[in-house]
């Protein structure tokens, strides 16, 4: 049973009951999971939590290969098994999720006080899990979380926000946003000012027309959602929560 969790330095893949089932079975399950939603994982750095499983070097190399084939980097493996930890270290991977080693090995996200977010298997729309970020997301930075993402600040051009659930930007969204990246078609993207370079919801993609020189998009709060497999934008009335259909 594999669970994908998000925490400040990226993604954590938890292998529950890894010691009871053969490692290869777990890897097959992982492969299936990764291939179901490739957009979410591509380019990410992940950590494994293998619980008390005893893994040898070949097991670990196999896992690294599975990930590498999908442009995913394994940077840490945590385990309660001392022997596994020793193998992990001998392969040059981290065996702890300290923020120092995370900052060094997973350059995707800037070092911040980290906290492991609890289980995130629940569906968006209901409570679920959220990542709250209060800063500007700058060009080249990627924010990735299996649950919802709430950002208090702007998302600059060149930045990417990828969420399994909804994305709420309390600020201007000028970068790329991918909501429902784990396949949820009910997910939405909201922003106080919607001027993204690209919006994706589940499998659908929307790329706005490029603006004339000096032209600016309207400064209105909008919500992007999926309707008949197409991304549409509605005004997002944050006071009444009524949303009115709007053509762009």
């Amino acid at each position, binding site marked *: 049973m594999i669970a994908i969790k998000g925490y400040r330095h990226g993604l954590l893949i938890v292998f529950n009951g890894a010691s009871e089932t053969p490692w290869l079975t777990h890897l097959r399950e992982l492969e299936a999971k990764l291939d179901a939603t490739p957009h979410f994982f591509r380019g990410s750095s992940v950590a494994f939590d293998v619980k008390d499983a005893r893994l040898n070097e070949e097991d670990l190399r196999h896992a690294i290969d599975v990930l590498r084939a999908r442009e995913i980097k394994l940077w840490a493996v945590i385990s309660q098994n001392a022997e596994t930890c020793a193998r992990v270290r001998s392969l040059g991977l981290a065996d702890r999720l300290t923020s120092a080693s995370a*900052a060094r090995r997973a*350059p995707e*996200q*800037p*070092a911040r006080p980290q906290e492991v977010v609890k289980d995130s298997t629940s569906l968006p729309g209901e409570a679920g899990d959220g990542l709250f970020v209060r800063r*500007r997301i*700058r*060009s*080249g*930075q990627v924010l990735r979380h299996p649950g919802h993402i709430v950002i208090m600040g*702007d998302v*600059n*051009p*060149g930045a990417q926000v990828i969420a399994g659930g909804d994305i709420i930007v309390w600020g201007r969204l*000028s970068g790329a946003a991918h909501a429902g990246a784990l396949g949820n078609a009910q997910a939405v993207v909201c922003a106080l000012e919607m001027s993204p370079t690209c919006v994706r919801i589940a499998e659908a993609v929307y790329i706005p027309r490029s603006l004339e020189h*000096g032209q600016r998009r309207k400064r209105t709060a909008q919500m992007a959602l999926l309707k008949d497999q197409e991304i549409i934008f509605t005004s997002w009335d944050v006071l009444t929560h009524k949303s009115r259909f709007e053509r762009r």
Partner: protein
Amino acid sequence: MITVTSGKGGVGKTTLTANVGTALAQLGHKVVVVDGDIGLRNLDLVMGLEHRIVYDIVDYVEGRCRLRQALIRDKRAAELFLLPAAQTRDKTAVNPQQMIQVCDELRKEFEFILIDSPAGIEQGFQNALAPADVVLVVINPEVSSVRDADRVIGLAESQGKTQIYLVINRVVPMRVKKQEMLSVDDITEVLSTEIIGIVPEDEAILSASNRGTPVVCNDKGPAALAYRDIARRLSGEQVPLAEPQSLSWWQRLFGKVS
């Protein structure tokens, strides 16, 4: 300990380092400017000190000389020194730990250490960033420069740097007015970083760089004034920040009347 960087090349890092370094020394501070661009050095050229290089930073790091021997004194100010980069090596000749160690050594003697970072975000940039207390990000008022600066600021923040300031270089007020260049507001909207200086485009810069004499040495032009203001702000003075205005034809004719 100040690092001058930009991400994008050709925006004026080296010129700024040379001029602000010289201006700080003119204010009576003990200053050393360090060329972080190993393999493509040119801070020495802009400062007119090329022919005096005997040892460089790589010689010191690899133990071929003492730090004192690698430092070149600039006679134009009382206490201004240059630590040149090596020309025959590349960025990997020095690592961030060594750079921190070099700067700790320099800190004992100097009030201000200015590192001229190379363009890009690779090892040369990491070397220059590692020891920095203050990061000066130089940009030109154009989108590609702002985008690169955004990336660089993000990287600096992730290294725990908190004192990050912006220098907007080569501003032509007329072209900002015509919306051919980004305005200060446009830039702040994207970067939201405190601005420490706005340097107007100035013809004096090019000839001064070619001569190897920073403009702050003898020029009264707009760029020289802006560089001196940046130096005063860095040394803790409160200097109001003014956006350069374009002069109308009659103002040009009769000189600027205040």
